[in-house]
């Protein structure tokens, strides 16, 4: 009896087939179920301890476990840490508010709304785990504030119990995640870093040999942006995981910075080559191609294999260092060969491309060195690591704050007007969601998932709380009765598609099941609280959809415009560490924009093109500013360079044909000045280098300004005829 591989019947499966199927199942399903079992256990453990200690509301501990539950230890600990900070801040704020306004409910609710608005704005400003502290500070104030507004004398006790319950939940979740079959973040991080290094190496060698087409370039850059942001998020969380990860944290930041700058310079190099090809500078191209090929061979010999680990990349770092040392000589030789055949313009092009190649080699070397450094345990970074600079958008943050204030005030008004006993619950839930989704790319969609989860959670709580639990007696049976219901929710969370529904289900179930010290089995409060939560979620969704929607045209246009205005940062920011800050915040902003981009409509490609042009321009401007900062420059030359920078800033603030012309004139004047300065006597090597870099920057700027396509990419927003495709579609 033999089974064909295409249609195997179960009866015909051999032992090997069964073993394969088993292995596939173990590989794909078991981690999820382990997570479900661990979280359920942690939740019930927290519930039990909370009962034993006689806390006011044991379910808060259980809910905390549901909320911080993550498969990897680092994520749990990071989320927990910021949850603790937020809870404490929120409790202190409530104590203050109740102390000030306990007698006046209107004043109290207004003050509370303002506090929540502030916290929401903070959460929108920081989109990583830090945001979570703000979320908690906001909604802890509601959780404690509403009950204590009715009984001000209990506020201190309520706050103490709330903090204790949250701490207990966090301790249980953290200890169980870390002790029982732990999954460390570190392992995934290592795989990710190796993967991105190899991917980048492949990309670079492909680009240097001119084997990449436009589409695959774009796809790779899309990946690079995602990698930068993911690496930072993982590094941030792994920091809490083990002291080992803390020691490496600086080196990881350095690696990420190196990664960003090398991706930009390889792009600049590639763009330069494209322009040379378009202008048919064959002689320069020929010489450059030889240089590129030499670097590509060093990076990856034709028959060579890519380094699989950081340790294996050590010889590569040495090869790049040797190449870097010999590069000026090679460039001088190539230039000498070129001088007979090429005219002055072509020579300038060659100089620019050679300068970019030199810079790229430098950055690739840095990147490889910091990659190799990861393999050595216990040593510090070889140079100070720049911090990750996220792009914080104040307008988006302020809008999020306003949304939360509006939602909370309208529900409070409804609560006061109708004297509905569950009004506080509705307001709290609205507040939770306004905070939680302040920085989500598609909050309305997320809220829909949550609301669906709410309905199912309400149903499950109804069945479990009113049909199952009354039959049972004692904690063990209570736990046994609740376990299947809890597991359903967490299983839903493990699947990314249903994660939102799972979170909604778990929160609703834990909240409504109402396991208290004195148990009541009464359907009325269950329904009242359930509907309050649903109303709260709907109001939050309404506010998100109506008040300047996050994915709406206006807000996106504002962000797309901010992307272009990043150039202003390069023009006027403090020069110290500017290159990294500019690079980092531009990439972060691009990541935010790409998260909500319409990929089918090609909006992502448009955004990428714009961001890459912005990066190119910004780096050229920074080169120019560094040249303008050298000591021996004459006053007139410095003024000309600064005027050129101001002209560029005006153009990028609001592009128009006239400003483009003015900027071009400024660039021409500055180029003349720099040429004169280069001829002058008495400048040392360092100054000469930065002047040369400035000249290359000016040359790049001129090509960018003359290039109609680039200008179009940058000014597309202002011109309605070529508005960003897909930006008008609101979520």
């Amino acid at each position, binding site marked *: 009896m033999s089974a064909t591989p295409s249609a195997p019947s179960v009866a015909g499966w051999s032992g090997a087939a069964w073993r394969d199927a088993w292995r596939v199942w173990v590989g794909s399903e078991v981690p999820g179920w382990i997570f479900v079992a661990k979280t359920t256990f942690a939740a019930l453990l927290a519930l039990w301890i909370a009962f034993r200690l006689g806390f006011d509301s044991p379910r808060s501990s259980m809910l905390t476990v549901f909320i911080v539950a993550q498969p990897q230890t680092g994520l749990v600990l990071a989320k927990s840490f910021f949850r603790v900070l937020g809870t404490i801040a929120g409790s202190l704020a409530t104590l203050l508010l109740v102390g000030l306004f306990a007698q006046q409910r209107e004043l109290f609710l207004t003050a509370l709304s303002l506090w929540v608005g502030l916290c929401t704005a903070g959460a929108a400003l920081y989109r990583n785990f830090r945001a979570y502290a703000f979320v908690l500070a906001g909604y802890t104030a509601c959780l404690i504030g509403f009950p204590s507004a009715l009984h001000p004398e209990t506020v201190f006790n309520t706050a103490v119990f709330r903090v204790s319950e949250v701490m207990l939940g966090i301790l249980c979740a953290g200890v169980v995640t870390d002790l029982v079959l732990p999954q460390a973040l570190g392992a995934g991080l290592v795989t990710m870093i190796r993967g991105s290094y190899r991917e980048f190496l492949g990309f670079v060698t492909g680009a240097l040999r001119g084997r990449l087409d436009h589409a695959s370039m774009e796809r790779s850059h899309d990946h690079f942006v995602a990698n930068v942001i993911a690496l930072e998020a993982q590094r941030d969380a792994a920091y809490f995981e*083990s002291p080992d990860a803390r020691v490496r944290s600086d080196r990881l930041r350095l690696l990420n910075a190196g990664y960003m700058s090398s991706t930009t310079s390889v792009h600049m190099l590639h763009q330069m080559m494209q322009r040379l090809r378009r202008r048919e500078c064959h002689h320069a191209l020929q010489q450059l191609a030889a240089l590129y090929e030499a670097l590509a061979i060093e990076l990856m010999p034709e028959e060579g294999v890519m380094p699989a680990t950081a340790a294996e990349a050590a010889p590569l770092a040495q090869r790049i260092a040797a190449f870097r040392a010999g590069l000026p000589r090679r460039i001088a030789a190539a230039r000498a060969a070129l001088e007979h055949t090429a005219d002055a313009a072509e020579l300038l092009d060659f100089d620019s491309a050679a300068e970019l190649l030199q810079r790229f080699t430098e950055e690739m070397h840095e990147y490889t060195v910091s990659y190799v450094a990861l393999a050595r345990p216990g040593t510090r970074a070889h140079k100070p690591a720049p911090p990750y600079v996220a792009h914080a958008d104040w307008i988006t943050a302020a809008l999020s704050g306003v949304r939360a204030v509006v939602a909370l005030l309208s529900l409070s008004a409804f609560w006061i007007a109708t004297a509905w006993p569950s009004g506080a619950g509705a307001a709290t839930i609205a507040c939770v969601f306004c905070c939680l989704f302040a920085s989500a790319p598609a909050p309305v969609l997320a809220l829909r998932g949550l609301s669906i989860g709410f309905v199912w959670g309400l149903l499950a709580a109804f069945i479990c709380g009113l049909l199952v639990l009354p039959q049972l007696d004692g904690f063990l049976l209570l736990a046994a009765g609740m376990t299947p219901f809890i597991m359903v929710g967490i299983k839903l969370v493990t699947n990314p598609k249903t994660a939102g529904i799972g979170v909604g289900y778990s929160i609703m179930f834990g909240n409504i099941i109402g396991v208290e010290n004195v148990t009541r089995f009464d359907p009325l409060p269950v329904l009242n609280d359930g509907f309050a939560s649903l109303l709260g979620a709907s109001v939050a969704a309404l506010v998100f959809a109506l008040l300047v929607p996050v994915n709406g045209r206006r807000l996106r246009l504002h962000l797309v415009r901010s992307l272009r205005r990043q150039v202003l940062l390069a023009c006027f920011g403090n020069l110290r560490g500017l290159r990294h800050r500019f690079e980092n915040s531009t990439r972060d902003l691009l990541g935010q924009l790409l998260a909500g981009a319409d990929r089918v409509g090609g909006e992502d490609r448009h955004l990428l093109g714009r961001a890459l042009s912005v990066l190119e321009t910004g780096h050229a401007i920074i080169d120019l500013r560094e040249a303008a900062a050298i000591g021996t420059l004459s006053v007139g030359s410095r003024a000309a360079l600064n005027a050129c920078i101001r002209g560029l800033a005006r153009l990028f603030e609001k592009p128009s044909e006239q400003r483009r012309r003015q900027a071009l004139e400024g660039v021409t004047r500055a180029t003349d000045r720099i040429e004169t300065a280069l001829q002058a006597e008495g400048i040392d090597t360092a100054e000469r280098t930065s002047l040369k870099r400035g000249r290359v920057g000016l040359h790049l700027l001129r090509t960018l300004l003359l290039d109609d396509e680039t200008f179009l990419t940058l000014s597309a927003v202002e011109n309605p005829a070529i508005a960003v495709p897909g930006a008008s579609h609101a979520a």
Partner: protein
Amino acid sequence: MPREIELFGFFMPTLLPMFLLAFGLQWLLDSVLARLGFYAHVWHPSLFRFSLFVCLFGAMGLFLY
């Protein structure tokens, strides 16, 4: 040692500051051990860390009860 400490008119169990102290101590010890490469010889590092914390906290608790 007193079992409760008064702070601004609010009584809290002495165990609470002890918990925080034990946490800080554990953090310190942990970093030192990691720098020495000690965790390479441990089967279950997080279990070791947790046990270390329980030992520290328990030992401090002995002063109280």
